[in-house]
């Protein structure tokens, strides 16, 4: 295709005290692309991020960022990459500007340049007005925005975002998505690790689904969803999804697979028009109070269920 590769990962393995966190992961991320890493906790996303950020050494395999080997040219890689971990990296007793200046110093920025860039970035994440306020007074969303600004202090071509919206309320999450879309528009290459399927679906050009240290699927979100097949999803919302209800709806679902939560059950079918009335009837027979019933296309969560037989949590 002739697209330029920004990040290349080949057969990456990481072992911690006899446990394999990564079991031979391989993929390429193209320049200017948002690449989603979707998987449950413990899938190996953060380990992979740490290796690409130059913090951890792989046990075997190879990874390159912008042509630099993450092991042999670790310092060069760290200078080119912007890393935004899931924890707050700002020092809470300092104010936002002091934090920005500190991180700018770590990247060797001269003072005047550091000041200019810090102001620009604080403005970008809408924190310039509170730049002199101690970070301890910030809300969770503000702290995440500051994390993002810090990750951009070295004007990185490649940005590693590790669970950037975990723990945020829906509004703050939408805010964060807005900033990530802005960065994508600037042409930056972004590796986005998340366990939120809507996030991966909405922001990523391509998504790698990880489970137990392996990439089990990699494609565009649309292609992945299509891989579930020509199935439609019927989602039944109830007050309480009992075991009897799950059993009854499972009998109507393709291959007997369903996805359920405390107040919903999702079943899969090739003929939604025929199955829908049966599903409603089965729900009522199971004694559940129906709140809503909808028919939709599969999500990435359905893809994960199909591939692993488990929910994405």
């Amino acid at each position: 295709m002739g697209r330029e590769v920004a990040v290349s990962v080949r057969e990456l393995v990481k072992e911690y005290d006899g446990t394999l966190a990564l079991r031979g992961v391989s993929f390429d991320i193209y320049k200017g692309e948002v690449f989603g890493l979707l998987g449950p906790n413990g899938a190996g996303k953060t380990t992979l991020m740490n290796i690409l950020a130059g913090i951890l050494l792989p046990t075997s395999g190879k990874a390159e960022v912008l042509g630099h080997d993450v092991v042999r040219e670790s310092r060069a890689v760290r200078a080119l990459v912007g890393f935004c971990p899931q924890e707050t990296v700002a020092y809470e007793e300092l104010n936002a500007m002091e934090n920005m200046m500190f991180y700018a110093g770590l990247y060797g920025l001269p003072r005047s340049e550091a000041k200019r860039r810090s102001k620009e970035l604080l403005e970008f994440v809408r924190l310039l007005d509170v730049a002199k306020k101690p970070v301890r007074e910030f809300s969770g969303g503000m702290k995440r925005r500051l994390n993002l600004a810090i990750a951009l202090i070295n004007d990185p071509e490649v940005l590693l975002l590790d669970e950037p919206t975990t723990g945020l309320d829906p509004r703050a999450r939408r805010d964060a998505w807005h900033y990530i879309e802005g960065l994508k528009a600037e042409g930056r290459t972004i590796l986005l690790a998340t366990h939120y399927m809507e996030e991966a679906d909405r922001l990523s050009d391509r998504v790698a689904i990880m489970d137990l240290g392996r990439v089990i699927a990699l494609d565009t979100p649309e292609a992945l969803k299509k891989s579930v097949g020509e199935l439609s999803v019927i989602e039944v919302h109830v007050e309480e999804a009992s075991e009897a209800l799950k059993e009854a709806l499972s009998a109507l679902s393709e291959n007997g697979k369903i996805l359920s939560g405390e107040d919903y059950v999702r079943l899969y079918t090739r003929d939604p028009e025929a199955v829908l009335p049966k599903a409603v009837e089965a729900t009522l027979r199971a004694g559940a109070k129906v709140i809503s019933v909808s028919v939709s296309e599969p999500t990435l969560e359905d893809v994960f269920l199909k591939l692993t037989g488990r929910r994405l949590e």
Partner: protein
Amino acid sequence: MGLRAILAIAERDVRSTAKDKMALFWIVAFPIFMLTMSFLLWANPMPPVTVKVGIVYEDTTVNWGNLTFTAKNITDIMKEVYVETEEGKVKVFNVVEYGNKTDEALRDLKAGKLDAVVVYLDRFSVNASYGLSAKAEIYVRGGDAYTEQVTRAVLTQFFDELSDRIAEARIEVMEQNFPEDQLPPGQKQMIVEWMKGLAWPVNMTIETVTPETLMGKAGLRGWFTIAMTGVQLLMSGLAIGATMVVEERDRKTLRRLMAAPIGPWDLLLGKTLSGLVWLGISSLVCIGYGLAWGARIYWHPLENPAHALVPVLLLMGGLMMTGLGLLISMVAKTSKGASGLATAIGFPLMFLTGIWMPKWMLPRPLRVFANCFPLTMIVDALRAVMVFDAGLEAVLPVLPWTILATLVFYGLGVLAYKVVLRRSL
């Protein structure tokens, strides 16, 4: 290594510490509090001793009216003996007269109500006045070696002095009454000298000489000021080293720091630099506060080259204790634990190494330990130079050993740091 990154780390650390009330307490308030206590409680010269003496007159001639010296006269003199101190005059004797009741006086001595009993034996006054040997008995309370020695010394000194005065007076009287015309020329002077020889076969004088710097409060305050500087190097140095990596790990900032293009040395040097800045500030607080209280501290590096080595000694002390703190961090799980462990180790060392308490107060085995402890050597050298105004002779002998100890302690600390850093990522 990137100088800009090292300075950024140091500056951030200094700023964070400046906003941490607990850290400021240990760096600024703690030495001020300790020095104030020390200046008020301990930095005073030992007060002179007042001896409580019971006087008994078994002397039946004590009330004869025409005598030159009587036991009563001596008692009156005793009551007027003072010693000059910075606080004013202090009585040397607290006199209690018992008449002729020797048993009662000795009973009180045994009961601990008196330090000594002086019994003037019969005919003391008349013998003293007429040139014969006047006899008295002195009973000193035993049991406490220190009090016994002091009481014995004070009374001996008093009666020696009294004897001298009586001898001088007797010789003077005899000299005045010599039949000068019946003696060959110069014979009278020879006889007088011979009589002086009889009275004082060994003519000895005793003078007390105290080192100038330890005279009075100023010197003692200087001693405690440098002691407190040493304590700060010990306690804060240990805490700085112990929490260096663990604190960043607890804050969850360590991974982000190491994702920047810096190496482990940048972080170590930046953090060490910040620690040294605070140790320097703490030392200045100690010395400044000591000077404000009138402590005697010398600092003239242009005249005394040993004074130019003071910053070097402080730097070595700081690095040494930071290294020891880094070793402590190997067994600490959290920054609170690391800080607690540093205090738990530093606090006894403060007393056991002769940094805060004088070494002579320590039991012999601990004195050996204190003499070998490199930070004690540094503090002793600082005291010698800054309080006693000693020259290079006080610093140069300990310099090789303290340089070696600094390299070993900090070197081991660096190894520990690398282990802790690897474990923390």
